[in-house]
Structure formats: structure tokens, C-alpha cells
């Protein structure tokens, strides 16, 4: 049994989500290959060779892979897919976009967003916004899987010594073309990788007011998240959204400020180690998952917290 992990990378570097995915792969087999599909991705490949537990890095380098165009990535994966019993990718927007396309062409029913591996064909995955956990057995011969990264610790980025192999580009297509990207730039830690996350909700009231969250975050080196309502209202960019249909986070500390705690929001943060809720409504559902609740006006206590916290 050999497992293939499709790397998520920036062409120069391997993204942390890949390390979580390899950790899941290691629970299935000790024979793990990593496929890096990119343009001028030699640096990402040599980083991948150093990852602990990887046997082989396969480099598929071509201008058509400059952006993650699923219509081009998929044929690249399919060139070698049949050599593997399992094909894994992180359940990021990258993995979610590409993997079902791969699965369909292999005539395989994908297993989305797994949080545990029971054996090589049985997996657990959250359903109904995390309100239920399904244990599912795949009857397909090749298992195509996306991995919920917060459920698996990262493998070490150093210490490995994998072989490197080249794979020629697959046929490319021009039915889908990259136009532009608006990347949210921030000096703060990445939301899904941060040890502390502070999220703001509709209670903040405006984009301007949201700065009080950012000030606190910067004081303690936290990432900033948000509820859907805060994103919809335009207080912060879309990629801040935490929840069932946004990002899933599980930091050591999650502070929810002015967030009511709808099930769709809880789905994205309730596996955090310690949860703090600040809300002026003592009945807000967020308090039912909070280790420490502070019933107060956020405009008074958040600045106070920022002043007093070390």
C-alpha cells in the first residue's frame, strides 16, 4: 500500500497543511509519496524531500501549473493515480476544489474532511456542521480523501531524505484561465495555523470598530477571525470567516467577541483547547461552549484586556 499526498505549496515553500496531511497519510502506510505540481517549484520540492516520513517526491513542473487550475492539475494527478491505494490532500479550498475532480475521473466516491483513520478503509468525518460524526467505510479500490488539518498534528518539516523524481506535464487545457488574485496581506499568523485566534462578530458594529480586535490580536500575537455576519457586513475580508463553510480552527486559545454562537460558527471553532466568549447577552449560545465567559460590553472590556494582558 502506497499513499500519495498532493502537496499544497507556494512553488517556493510547502504549506503547513501538507504536513498535517502527511501525518494523516502516515496512519495508513509508511510508504508515502508527495506530488508537487507547480511552476518553477524546485524549492518546494527540496523542502518536501526533507519532510519526515516521505519516501519519494514527485515533481511535475510546467507553466500551466502556475495557478491551481483544477482542469490542469487533475490530469497531472491522474497520470500516476492508479499506482496508489490512497490519494490525500488537505481539505483547504485547494484540496476541496481539485480532489472531487480527480475522484470522479477515477470513478471513486471521495471521502471529505476526515478527522480520524480507523483502518485503511474506514474513516470518521464530521457531518451536519459537526453536530454528528459519521464513521464510513469506503468500498472503492482507490480512496480519494481530503483531510481536516486541525485533526492531525503536523509531521516534522525536517529530518527526512526523500528521493526526487520528475514527472512530465500532462495535457493542458485553456477552458479555464487565471485572471487575478486579491490576496489578503497581513503580518499576523495564518488563521488555521495560529496558537491564538481572536474572532469578532456582528457585535463589533463596523469595520472601524473591528480594529479593537486587531489591536488585541497584535498585542498577543494572535490571528484574527470573524463570524459570517461580520464578513457579510464588510468589516473584514471573506477569508477571515470561521465556521461550517469557512475555515476550521483549533488553536490553544480562541476568543470570540460579539459573536452569538450559531451552530455554523461553532462548527469551525469548538475543537479549540480553551474558548473565551465576550458577549453582553448572558444567554448567547456561545457561552455553552466557552471555558471562560465574560458578560460585558465588548467596547469596554476588549480595550481593557488589551491594556492589561502581558
Amino acid at each position, binding site marked *: 500500500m502506497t499513499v500519495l499526498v498532493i502537496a499544497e505549496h507556494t512553488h517556493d515553500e510547502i504549506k503547513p497543511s501538507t504536513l498535517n496531511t502527511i501525518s494523516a497519510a502516515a496512519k495508513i502506510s509508511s510508504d508515502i509519496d508527495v506530488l508537487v505540481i507547480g511552476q518553477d517549484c524546485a524549492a518546494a520540492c527540496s523542502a518536501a524531500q526533507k519532510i519526515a516520513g516521505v519516501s519519494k517526491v514527485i515533481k511535475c513542473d510546467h507553466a500551466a501549473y502556475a495557478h491551481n487550475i483544477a482542469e490542469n492539475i487533475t490530469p497531472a494527478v491522474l497520470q500516476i493515480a492508479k499506482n496508489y491505494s490512497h490519494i490525500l490532500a488537505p481539505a483547504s*479550498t485547494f484540496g476541496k476544489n481539485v480532489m472531487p475532480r480527480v475522484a470522479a475521473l477515477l470513478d471513486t466516491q471521495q471521502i471529505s474532511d476526515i478527522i480520524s483513520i480507523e483502518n485503511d478503509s474506514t474513516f470518521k468525518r464530521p*457531518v*451536519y456542521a459537526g453536530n454528528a460524526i459519521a464513521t464510513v467505510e469506503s468500498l472503492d479500490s482507490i480512496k480519494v480523501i481530503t483531510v481536516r488539518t486541525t485533526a492531525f498534528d503536523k509531521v516534522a518539516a525536517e529530518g527526512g531524505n526523500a528521493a526526487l523524481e520528475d514527472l512530465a506535464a500532462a495535457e493542458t487545457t485553456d*477552458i479555464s484561465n487565471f*485572471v487575478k488574485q486579491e490576496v489578503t496581506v497581513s503580518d499576523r499568523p495564518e488563521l488555521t495555523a495560529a496558537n491564538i485566534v481572536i474572532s469578532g462578530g456582528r457585535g463589533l458594529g463596523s469595520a472601524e470598530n473591528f480594529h479593537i480586535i486587531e489591536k488585541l490580536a497584535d498585542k498577543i500575537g494572535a490571528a484574527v477571525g470573524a463570524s459570517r455576519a461580520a464578513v457579510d457586513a464588510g468589516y473584514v475580508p471573506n477569508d477571515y470567516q470561521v465556521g461550517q463553510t469557512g475555515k476550521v480552527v483549533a488553536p490553544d486559545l480562541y476568543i470570540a467577541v460579539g459573536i452569538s454562537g450559531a451552530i455554523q460558527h461553532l462548527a469551525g471553532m469548538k475543537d479549540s483547547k480553551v474558548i473565551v466568549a465576550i458577549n453582553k447577552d448572558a444567554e448567547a449560545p456561545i457561552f455553552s461552549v466557552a471555558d471562560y465567559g*465574560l458578560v460585558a460590553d465588548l467596547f469596554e472590556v476588549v480595550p481593557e484586556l488589551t491594556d492589561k494582558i502581558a
Partner: protein
Amino acid sequence: MKILVPVKRAIDYNVKVRVKADESGVDLANVKMSINPFDEIAVEEAVRLVEKGVASEVVVVSIGPAQVQETLRTALAMGADRAIRVQTDVPTDLGGVEPLAVAKCLKALCDKEQPSLVIMGKQSIDDDSNQTGQMLAALLGWPQATFASELSISATKDSAEVTREIDGGLETLAVKLPAVVTTDLRLNEPRYASLPNIMKAKKKPLDDVSAEELGVEFKPRLKVLKVTTPPTRQSGIKVDSVDALIDKLRNEAKVI
């Protein structure tokens, strides 16, 4: 230009889900069911394209038991022109019709209906798979633009520009038509169907086709062995001041 919109009947997003005592699934008895929220957004987008004069017809499709006709009527009341139900007794919730089988049904219908665009939800809120649109695009050999927050059709109607919500921010793709677009939450705000439109929807055509006619089998590939309740969090405490909170975080939880 014809638009096909697949809609799924799913548990209403406000319902508090309960797992059955025998761990065979979740309790759907007497539970409110609705059109999957992302599919409602897809119907809205398609109807707007007709209203803007870009598209000429919106066909909605649902795969599942008789009750999915209600879901189709909801979509017709929002302004879709006609509906197709793919008959099966297999339920639509977890362990029932699977994304790959749904995608195969939709592929067969696309071969027949020849739409220029399929707009569908990015995810159903019961099985949370987030697969069907990508699978359909793959089977058809069409481009896919997933997680769309903005969609515009070119003047010549042979391509679409789609803004996608991705982990790092926003990405814009240009896809040639025909294509599959999957909706994210911020694409639009769906309308409420007015009473006259609900009445009108009752007279709109709703055709049945069997899954066998489409040549699709619903043999499960993913056997649901059991469904359990996730571990519940111990309920915590309320603190009465910022000082008390900092003390707890520092000395009890030791996270700062």
C-alpha cells in the same frame, strides 16, 4: 442561454441536529426540511440572469424521493421555469444518494438538456461533502468555478468571469461556457417567494425521470457504519472582570 440548477432537499439550517440512539443516523422525524441554502443562492443567481436578459430559461433538478418535489416547487416559486425530478427511493441525507451518483445523474441530464451553465451549491449542509459540482464538471469535461462570490457572463455569452472565495482571499477565473459554477454565501441574497409566485409555481411543469432511464445506480460506495454525537464540551464558568479572566488564562488554563 439555458441554466440548469440542481437543488437538494436538506435539513433546515436552524434545526438542532440529534443523533439517533441506535447510532444509525440523525433523527429526521418531524424535522423541518428546506432547500439547501447554497442551492437557494444558485436559483437566485440563475433567475437574476434571466431577469437581466442574459439567460432565457432556468431548469431546476432534484434527485430523491417524492418529497423533493416540494423543494422543486420552492425553486419554481423563486422564478425557475420548469423542474425535473430524478426518481429514487434512496433518501437524500447521509448514507443515501452520494455525490458521485448525483453527479452522474446530472451529467446524463446535461447531455440531454444541453445547458450553457450549471449553477449549484458548493456544499450541502447535511453531508457537508463539497464534491458534486466538481465531479459533474469532471464527468462533462467542463471547466469549474467553485465557491463563487461574483459571476458575470461575457457579452458574447461564450465565457464567464467568476470571483472565487479561496483560503488566501479572492481569485478571479475566466471559464469558457458551458461550465459549472458552485455558489458561496456572498454571491447574492435570495428573495422570498411572493404568494402569487407560489401559486403560479404550482402550474409550472415538473417532469419525472427515473434514475434507471438515466442509467445511474445508487449502490453506496461509502457505507455509513455509525453516526455518533461529537464529544460535548464541559460547560465552563463565567468570570466577572477582565482581571479575573486574565488570571484564569494565565494561571489555570496557562494559555497566555
